[in-house]
Every structure is written in structure tokens, then in C-alpha cells.
């Protein structure tokens, strides 16, 4: 039985990596949000499979929370923000797409190099996925750097959160329940605050381009 769950978890990990790359190369905001929702769904599925395979009830609870938070609530909020600020236009990138992808690949290789010594020591069934989780985190970090608009940067931040969550579930069958709740609460409050900020920036600079946020410097 474990052979199947092992394969399923690896499949979900591969899917997550693919989605991270897709978000890195995506130009339009709407499809960026769809990809994020997809990532949330994959995460929830992986958590349920892990919960089923290791018979740990709290994994089901966290899977449910992920589903509620990252598949329903946050995308709904983002859509609301997008429509309210009528942000439909393409997303400029600071560096063109091909170079970002190549750098992405280098990052993935580096992540695996890092995770290699740990994965063969780890006993959890999803040993190999730690490298992928680290890769997801680094890729979303990369995404935040290369985006020049506020909303894509927020989505990058959320993707990094997803990567971390997957690392928690994959490497250690999820954190203790209380900590999971705390993290989820923090993510939620973070999103609310970012939403408030988006409105304030829009009101102050009537554009969401971050290049206007460069006055505080010590040249």
C-alpha cells in the first residue's frame, strides 16, 4: 500500500514544482491566481494522502484548513482586490522570462544538492520531497524579486508559504496542531494587511508599480 502513496506523494511534489515554474513564467495576473489556487489544491491532496497513509488524524484537519484557506478564501479575496482595483493588465518582469527559467533550474539543482544529505537520513515516506519543497521556496523567492508590481509580489509571498507548508507536511508529517493553527492565523492576518496596503498604495500612488516606492535611500 505504501508504494502507491509514495508514488502519489512524489506525483504531487512534481506537480507542485511544475506549478512553481509556471507561476514564475506567467504574465497575466488572473492566471497567476488560478495557478496559486491549483497549488493550494495539490497541497491539500498531498496532506490527505499523507494523513491516510500514516493514519495521523491532525493531517486531515490541516488538509481541510489548507483547502478552506488557500483554495477558497484567499483566491476569493485576491479576485475581490483585482476587480475593485480593476487591475487586468499584463505583469512586467524586471528580467525576461527565459533567463528567469534558467536561473530557476539552477536553483532547483542547488536545492537538491542541499537536501540530498538529509533526505537519505530521513525516515518519512516523502523523503525525496524535501528537496522539492526547498526548490519551491527558492523559486517563489525568485518570483518576488523579479516582479515589479505589488500584487504579483504578494502572490509570490503566498507561494513561498505554500512551499513551506509542503515542507512541513512532507518532512515531518506536519507540525504540532497548535503551531499549525498559529501559522494559518498569521498567514490570514498577513493577507488582510497586504490587502489593506494594496488599497493604500493605490490611493497614494494611483498605481501598483513598486518602482514608485524608491524614495527612502541613502545615495
Amino acid at each position, binding site marked *: 500500500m505504501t508504494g502507491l502513496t509514495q508514488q502519489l506523494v512524489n506525483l504531487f511534489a512534481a506537480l507542485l514544482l511544475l506549478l512553481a515554474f509556471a507561476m514564475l513564467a506567467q504574465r497575466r495576473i488572473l492566471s497567476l491566481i488560478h495557478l496559486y489556487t491549483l497549488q493550494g489544491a495539490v497541497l491539500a491532496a498531498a496532506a490527505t494522502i499523507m494523513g491516510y497513509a500514516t493514519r495521523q488524524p491532525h493531517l486531515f484537519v490541516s488538509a481541510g484548513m489548507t483547502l478552506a484557506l488557500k483554495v477558497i478564501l484567499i483566491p476569493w479575496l485576491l479576485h475581490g482586490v483585482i476587480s475593485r482595483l480593476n487591475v487586468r493588465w499584463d505583469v512586467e518582469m524586471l528580467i525576461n522570462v527565459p533567463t528567469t527559467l534558467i536561473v530557476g533550474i539552477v536553483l532547483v539543482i542547488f536545492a537538491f*544538492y542541499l537536501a540530498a544529505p538529509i533526505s537519505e537520513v530521513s525516515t518519512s515516506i516523502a523523503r525525496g520531497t524535501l528537496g522539492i519543497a526547498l526548490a519551491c521556496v527558492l523559486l517563489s*523567492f525568485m518570483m*518576488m*524579486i*523579479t516582479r515589479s508590481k505589488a500584487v504579483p*509580489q504578494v502572490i509570490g509571498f503566498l507561494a513561498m508559504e505554500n512551499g513551506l507548508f509542503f515542507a512541513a507536511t512532507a518532512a515531518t508529517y506536519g507540525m504540532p496542531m497548535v503551531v499549525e493553527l498559529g501559522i494559518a492565523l498569521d498567514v490570514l492576518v498577513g493577507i488582510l494587511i497586504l490587502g489593506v496596503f494594496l488599497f493604500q498604495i493605490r490611493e497614494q500612488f494611483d498605481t501598483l508599480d*513598486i518602482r514608485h516606492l524608491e*524614495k527612502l*535611500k541613502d*545615495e
Partner: protein
Amino acid sequence: MSAGPQLVALLALCAAWLAIGVAGLAALHRFHIVARVLFPAGGAVALAVVAAALPAVWGAPEMAVLPLGLPGLPFHFRLDGLSALFLLVLGGAAAGVSLFSAGYFRQSEGTAPGLLCLQYHVFLAAMALVILADDAYAFMVMWETMALASFFLVTSNHRIAEIRRAGYLYLLIAHVGALGILLCFGVLQANTGDYSFANMRAQHLSPFWASVAFLLALGGFGAKAGLVPLHVWLPEAHPAAPSPVSALMSGVMLKTAVYGFLRVAYDLLPAQLWWWGVVVLALGLASAVFGVVFAAAQSDMKRLLAWSSIENIGLIFAGIGLSILFAAYGMRAVAALALTAALYHVASHAFFKSLLFVGTGAVLHATSERSLGKLGGLMRVMPWVGWATLLGVLASAGLPPLGGFVSEWLLLQSFLFTPGLPNSFLNMLVPVVAAVIALVAALAGYVMVKFYGVIFLGQHREDKLAQAHDAGPWERLGMAWLVAGCVALGLFPAQVIDILAPVTQLLVGASLAQADGGSWLLVPVSVERASYGPLIFFAGVAASFGLAYVLVRRLYHGRLRRAAPWDCGFPWQTARMQDTAEGFGQPVRQIFEPLYRMRRELPSAFDARPRYAVEVGDHFWYWLYLPLARLVDGAARAIGTLQRGRIAIYLLYSFATVIAVLLWVTR
């Protein structure tokens, strides 16, 4: 540790000074209490310090530990011969200056008198405790508190921009010097982690580390004393301070730097290397020449005295350098002679420089004028200040009956012994160094004649000078004490040498044997070799003065008539026809042209309003300090680009840091 009676008394007196300061803070704006009660009380405490320190010169060293300070390193205090001597100098000069400042501080609108009283007495207490400190932490705390208190005193009327600038420069160089001293103590403790001086004395450093410690001490204490490369703050800070404070800073604070250097060079470092002496001698000479040459070119009376302080510090360090040189070659007796010359100059400079600064203070108060171009003829309206400052001028010029001459005499005598050095190169050095010392002493006379002549003699260059009033009773008392100090140091050298003997015995292991000179003849080695009897000397001059006076009155007459001075047929004599300060300094500026950085503005023949101006600059400022400032500014600008403002860049930094740390961890 049983604390000796003298040390306990001295610590109590320092506490008394602090108490007076705090009392001043309490009576912040009540001027009379501060001026008439607290400052004289400070003077009385200073006298008590003299009384307590005198017996300690001969006594055995006393130790005490206070529960203050760091957990592992409480405050250690120690009173030995060297500390006692410098406390005597501090107490003596501070007594006179405190009495003077009782009358000096008026209801001026500068800082509140109570605050001034607090800073003044914290300054005195800090200096005394620096001299008593016996571990690195106590020394550093008291050293920087002294710098801090004197900084606040220097910037007491901080509404003038260039006084603020002077205060800033002063505290900056003092702090950098203190960092050097901290590094020196770090080297001296030689990895034992115990920072008490007792432990440092027990360490035997390798010649390399001993030299590193010595050079750090020379740099650190030289910055506070005003040795040449680090002297730029002194001509700015001393004139900016109120006069009694400049007197204390010049007279006593520079001596704490000399004390610190002697403590490290002789007490904490067991053995001395010969080239240390040469380095100190060279720096001392450079400071002396630079000081006196620049003093001659000044046209502000307090800057002139500040530069002359640099010259005197140069002479003191030259004496110390010579004594280190002799000590390194084992010539103990001659090293004692050179060290006695240096210590004697410390004492006499403390008294006559305080007297001169206090004199300028009285002039400044009477005329509220500092530039020499606007003074003149004050002798008639301020006789007390005039005669007292005349005595200070004679002592500062190193003229025979007074204190300045004795230390110069001892220094020149010690130069005559240098041909006994085994190193042939140094023997050749002797005539050059002796010549420079003689030239500096002569130039000091030139500067003092200029200082005294332009201020007190001649005609009033401004007509408001006629209303100048003489010094008040307190001020006269203070000046009288300082004059008495100068005269005593001049006429009774044998007794002063007896006080210095145990100190040189402690430091160099030998002292000036008072051979057969009796009590009124100064005989360093033997009568045939050299001797100087100021009392007989003074009696000789006085006798012939008196005889001539009486005989002329008896044989001829004493009639006197007043008339207008000789005007060589040109009736419109004005005060502007007298020699100005710049004029009087012109020959020295011409002869020592390369030492200055002069910018002259000469009027052309067709100028409607011809204007002549000469601006004397300091080479070190242009070749050392400005490039350093530009270097730091350039580095700051380069690092400034780190904070460019774009969030993407910041995220990139964070990303790069994570990658770097991960690589570091997993290598």
C-alpha cells in the same frame, strides 16, 4: 588591601569636589552662592589635596579598592611617588585657578553658573582620579570623564559656531586617543585577562609587543598632550574655553597625559629600548619648534598661549625621550637628571601657563577683546594684572631668576652628558638637538615679549580700553598664589629637587644626589661641573639695582619731568603707528617660511581699497586631516550605494545571503 591614610584622604577630597559640583547643580542660577562659596571651597579642597599629597611623595605606595566598577574588575586606586607629585601640581595650579574663577565668572548669559560649577569640579575630580587610578577600567573611565567634562566646559558659550567646531574636534581626537590607550592596555595585559596595573607590571612582554604598547601609549597620550601630528585640536579648544578652564586645561590636563605616558613607559613596561627615546625626542623637538614658531605668528592672545603650551609639552617630551635613551643604555644618574628636568618643567609650566591664561582672562573680562590688534597700554589701567602677567611672561620666557629657567638649565645640562653614549650616531645628534633646544628657548622669549608688549605696553589701540577695570579681590588672590608658585619654583630649586628625587628614584632607579650645594645652590653632579644659585643670583642683581638707585639719588638727584614722547617732527602720532601683533611676528614668519602654509593677499597698485591679509595655516591640517576626512567620506559614499531604495535589490541581498550561508554551512 589596607588603604593608607593619604589615599583615603585624597579619595575623600575627590568626593568633596564632586559634592561641590552637585551643590552647584542644586544652586543652578543662584550666581552669588556659586561664585562666592562653591569656587573658593573648590580652591580650599585643592589646597587640601596639596597637603595630603606632599607626605605621600616620600611615603610607601598605598593601595585601595572601591566596590564600584565591573564585577570582575572593581576600581583599584594607588598612590605612589609619581602620582603624589602630579597631584601636587594639580592641587597647586587648581587652587590658584579656582580662587581666580571665584571672581571671574560674571552674570554672563552663557551656561548657567551652577552647571559651569558642576562641570568644573567634575573635571578636577576626574583628573585627580586619573592620576590615582591603578587599573585599566578605572583609568579609562576617569580619562574619558575628564575629556567629557572639559568638552562641556570648552563649549560653555556654544552659541558661537567656531567654538562648537573646536569642541567637536577636541572631543573627537580625545576619543580616538582614548581608543589608542585602550588598545595599549590590551597589549600590556598580555592575554592574562587581568586588567589591573599590578598584573601588567608583572608581565614580561617580548620586545616587539613592548614596542607596540609603547607606540600606542605615545599615540594615545600624545593626542591628549598635543604632540605634533595630533596637536590640531589644542589651538582651537583652549582659546574657546573660558580663561580659567583654559588655564586648567593647559596647565594641568596636558600634564595628566604626561603622567599617563610616564606610568606606561617607566612603570608598566619594565625595560626600555634605546630607539624609543629617539622617537620621543624627535617628536618632542618637532612639537617644540612647531609650537613656538606658530606662537610667534598668532594674533589672538589665547591661541598664542595655546601654541606656546604645545612648545612646552614638546620640551617636556624631549626631556623624557632623553631620559629613556639614557635609561636604555644603563646611564641611570644622567637619566635621572633628564627626567628631573622634564618633571621640573611640568611643575613650572603648570604654574606660569595658568598665570598667563588667568591674566588673559582678566584682560578679556575688562575689555571683552581677544585679538591683539585691539588691545595695548593696559599696564596703566590694570597694574595688578600687568605686573603679575609680567612675572608669568618672564618665567615662560625661561629667564634666570624664575622657574622656567631652572628646567631649561637642567635640560641643557643633561644634553652635555650625551657624548657619553656608546652609539656614535647619537653622539653626533647632540649638537643639533642642543642647538634646537637653545633656539626654541630663545624664540619663547621673543614670543613672550610680543605677547606682553602688544597687550600691556604702548598706547590704547581702542579708546574703550581706557575704561578697563583692574582685577577684583578674588582674582588678585588667585594670581598672587600662582605668582608665589612661580617665584618659589624659581628661587628654591634645591628644595623642589628634593621632592622630585624619590619620583626619579622610583622611575629610573637613581636621583640627583644633592652633593654639597647646601640648601640654596642647585648642584646636579658636582660644584666644579655645574651649579646654579638663584638666590645669590637674585641677590646680586637686586644689590646692584639698589646700590645704583641709592647712589644716583645721593650723588646727583631724582628729579623727573613729564613730556610728550619724541615724534621726530611728525605731530600726528596715533596708536595705530605702534607695532601690531602680525608685524612683531613678521621676522619669524620670514625666517621659518617653509613651516607655515601661508596665504597672502597683497593689494595691487590700482586697488581702490587696498587690503593686506595674511592667513597662516597648518601643514598637518592639509596633508593629514583633510585627506583622512575625504577617505572616510568616500568610503561612506561607496557603502551608501548599498541602500539604493529598490525593494527588488533588497530581496536580492536577502536571497544571496541565504544562498551564501547555506553554502558556508554545507561545505
